[in-house]
């Protein structure tokens, strides 16, 4: 099984849409994909076509076995588990992550975890082959946060694969292209690709769908395909 954790370096970087689109892109190349929402906002369903008034999720059940009835499947075949309303305080996200491995077809399935921005990477049960993507935007705040995070990772000695992924990149902005060039040239752990800013991603959410389905002609489609391809190559490196 391949586990990808996606977390915003701060709130509002577009993490959930990255997860939804990435899941869809992986699914398009006939991979089995599970999306687990670990974010109390519980909004992954909105990207994947779940009804607005559906409130239940794994946090409303006492254990994984009973929560598994909340697995939904969207039109493309992505299986996802929403967070829910958090009514059952006993369940914890670590249990969920650990239990995922028990799913019957989990051997070469992809697990995408939509992680909330406020819980740090260290708190997740991460294996060496797990990939942790930290979503950033090209701005000064992210710049400072990233360097802090780098120091932190260095001190704590991370064993997993950690990458920073640029989202909503707009090359028309001088600041953004300068920052990106700076990061590309000197930042370790910087993913060699970025997601362009594209209205299609926002619009797709308004249709309770993902950009890959709504706007296959858009650059977002290519960006997520590239991201998926890159992740596949990372994961294959792990196996070999």
């Amino acid at each position: 099984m391949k586990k990808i954790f996606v977390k915003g370096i701060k709130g509002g970087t577009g993490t959930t849409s990255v997860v939804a689109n990435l899941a869809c892109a992986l699914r398009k190349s006939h991979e089995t994909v599970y999306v687990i929402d670990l974010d109390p906002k519980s909004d992954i369903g909105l990207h994947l076509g779940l009804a607005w008034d559906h409130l239940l999720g794994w946090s409303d059940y006492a254990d994984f076995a009973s929560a598994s009835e909340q697995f939904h499947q969207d039109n493309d075949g992505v299986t996802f588990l929403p967070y829910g309303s958090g009514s059952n305080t006993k369940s914890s996200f670590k249990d969920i992550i650990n239990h995922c491995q028990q799913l019957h077809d989990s051997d070469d399935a992809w697990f995408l975890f939509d992680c909330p921005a406020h819980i740090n990477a260290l708190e997740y049960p991460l294996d060496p082959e797990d990939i942790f993507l930290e979503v950033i935007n090209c701005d000064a705040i992210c710049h400072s946060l990233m360097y802090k995070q780098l120091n932190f990772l260095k001190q704590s000695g991370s064993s997993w694969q950690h990458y920073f992924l640029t989202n909503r990149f707009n090359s028309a902005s001088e600041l953004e292209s300068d920052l990106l060039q700076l990061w590309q040239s000197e930042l370790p752990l910087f993913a060699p690709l970025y997601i362009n800013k594209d209205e299609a991603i926002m619009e797709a959410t308004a249709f309770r769908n993902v950009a890959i389905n709504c706007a296959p002609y858009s650059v977002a489609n290519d960006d997520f395909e590239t991201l998926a391809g890159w992740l596949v190559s990372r994961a294959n490196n792990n196996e070999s």
Partner: protein
Amino acid sequence: MKLPERIIKTCLGFLFTKKITRFVFFKFHGYFNQHKISLLGAFILPFLVLFLSLFIKLDKNRKNLIKQKLKYFYPHVTRPVVTPSNCVRIVLQSIYLALFNTTTTSQAQISYEQRKTWRKIKHSLRILRLVDKKLVRAFKRLWLFAKTNPSAESYQRISKAEIWNNRILKIAFFTILIFAVAVFVTVPFSIEAQAVFISLLLIVAYSLRRVEGQMATITMITLAVTTSTRYLWWRYTDTLNWDDPVALALGIGLLLAESYAWLVLILGFFQTINPLKRKPLPLNEDTSTWPTVDIYIPTYNEPLSVVKPTTIAAQSIDWPADKLNIYILDDGKRPEFAEFARQIGVGYLTRSDNNHAKAGNMNQAMKVTQGEYIAIFDCDHIPARSFLQMTMGQFLNDSKVCLVQTPHHFFSADPFERNLKNHRKIPNENMLFYGLIQDGNDMWDATFFCGSCAVLRRSALEEIGGFAVETVTEDAHTALRMQRAGYKTTYINIPQAAGLATDSLSAHVGQRIRWARGMAQIFRLDNPLFGKGLNIAQRLCYLNAMLHFLSGIPRIVFLTAPLALIYFNAQIIYAPFVAIFLYIVPTLLQVKITNSRIQGKYRYSFWGEVYESVLAWYILKPTTVALINPNKGKFNVTEKGGLNDTDHYDWTISRPYIILLLINVIGMTYGVFRLFFGDTSQIGVLIISMLWASYNVIILGAAVAVAAEAKQVRSSHRIKANFPAAIRLANGHTIKVKITDYSDNGVGLETEHSHLCRVNDKVELLMSRGFKQYSFATYICNTRDKQLGLTLRDLDLEKQKAFIQCTFSRADAWLDWQENFKHDKPSYSFSNVFYTSLRGFKNLIFHAPNELRPVIVFVSQVLYFVASLLPKKPTKAFKPS
């Protein structure tokens, strides 16, 4: 009623009834007053009618019927009927009707017959193709069979035997081979034997033409060499008319021209027998070991807009920044160039004088710069970023390499391509040299330096005292000197830069004149055949290059030779008609087939003749002058980047070919006249001469077509491309697109689906170079279904640089130029030349000056009139009752 009439009426009254008298007078008045027939005629005609009516019943219906019939049998007779031209028409038509079967069959039957004939033609064609295919396949099999090594032990033992390495045996083998060829070349054959011999060779060559592999090529070359040498031998020994001094003089002239053509052919075969196709060598991983490179961009009078992209692209070449220095060498000494160089941070060099033009300019620059290597770009040649990566490996691999040349590629159409409208359809004049000959030269270590898009080793240049300044083609001369000094030159056939082609025929011709003069100068001043340091192969390659530019006189001889027989009855090839036919035609076919195979992708059959014919007259004088006095003549700069704002015809430059064309056309007309009224024993030779002359007319027609200068619409040239990019619309949507073409101020692109963009919308164009993405503010200037045209406006220098990096200086920007062309098909190519030639004649008439217009109108009217006299087949459906 007048008195005479009354008298006549009374007289008639004695002979005829009153009714007939009235009829006569009625008709008379009609003929006289209405049809304006003479008095006597008008009086006699009614009697004629009366007389005829004794035999034929002439009522109204009958009359109409006869009229219809006449109209049917004489469709082209005009009214009034009684004119001289109509008499001719009627006589001719009557003869025609009497002699030929004109019965009209029903339409259905005609089409049935047509279909039947068509089927027969198709059937025979199919059989022909089948035979052709079978023949070729059989040869292929035979060939492969001969090539596969039999595994039998005895064979292995023989093939591996020591004896093959024996020197004496080798010499003996070659002696026998040469002896055999000599026998084939020199033994006189009877006509029948020649026919058998030559057709055998031709069949072999014809069947081999599609067989792949180097050995097949070499076999074909051997056959072509044998045939052509045999032909020449025959010409020298058998075909000179020693009794007729005029014919002898003209015949020797033709023979010399043919000998020249033969020599060039043989040298060409030698040069291109095994093109090297050198591959780039990888560089060391450690960039600190890479050498320093200076890039020179010499300029004299070109506008800044031409030099700017080149400089920017040169800056963007992938090489460690501290080891790359760019210099604009401005012989024009213009302040705006200095300012531009300062702005973007490149060197700007001028000098106090302008001695020795480009070579002097670069020599001066060498004194003040220090790079270990010098890359040279003409100011309009925009280099790709990979230029040094592709080339420098050769130097680092072999310390004797002093030059790496890459092809000159032109993104704009040269005058031939533009005026004949065949850009990217037919390989241009340059392609043969850069696609094939340079690769062939490289095999013999004789690559020429072409003045641009090349890297040189400074130490080698310094050893020979800098760029050669003695001739106007400093480049070729410099390379020659370095080779004499023991250095190697190399060629990499990967376009790594592209530039502007000359923009008018006169400029193009001017440039070729310079090359021709320069080559002739080198031939005199530093003859590659003599002197030290070169091996025999290099000497031959240089010889061929120079001979190529001496083609002026021979080409004109070929264009006029058949006229000697037509006009003066001079038997320049003194042999029976059958012999001439059996020697010339198969030899020509053999050479054409072989050349088509070798040059196929780089030069289509018959186009070489067109290119040469255009230049022949113009390089004739400068080469001759330079051969006699090599120090005469000055350096002329080729003008580029100009505009042709109207369609016009360049009468000055086309004058020589128009004169040649005229004497050929008049010769043809005279030939036709002689066919009918001349000596019947001459008809065979006459026909051959006329066929040759008509071929010349076709070639000259194509040459004339080139002089019709087409309008150039865009000042900046569109370059075809195919790479992904994206646009961001005002509403934030980012759409992926494919760039289909670009120029220095715009791009054309294609979206995947129909778009909803409108003209003047502002969109952002996103293009990537490596990991870096650039955004350009653009406006939509035209839209069509899936296509968009964007213009870039007011870019600052930084953005201009980015734009050039994303487009012109892409490593793959020019890679597809040679893949665009299919292999030559001679018949197809000939029809192409033929249609071009027709267009040339049309152009001549269309662009004729006003003084000539009445003549043209008159001639066309005469032709039309003569055509109207000819008999016509009755066509209208007519049902005889």
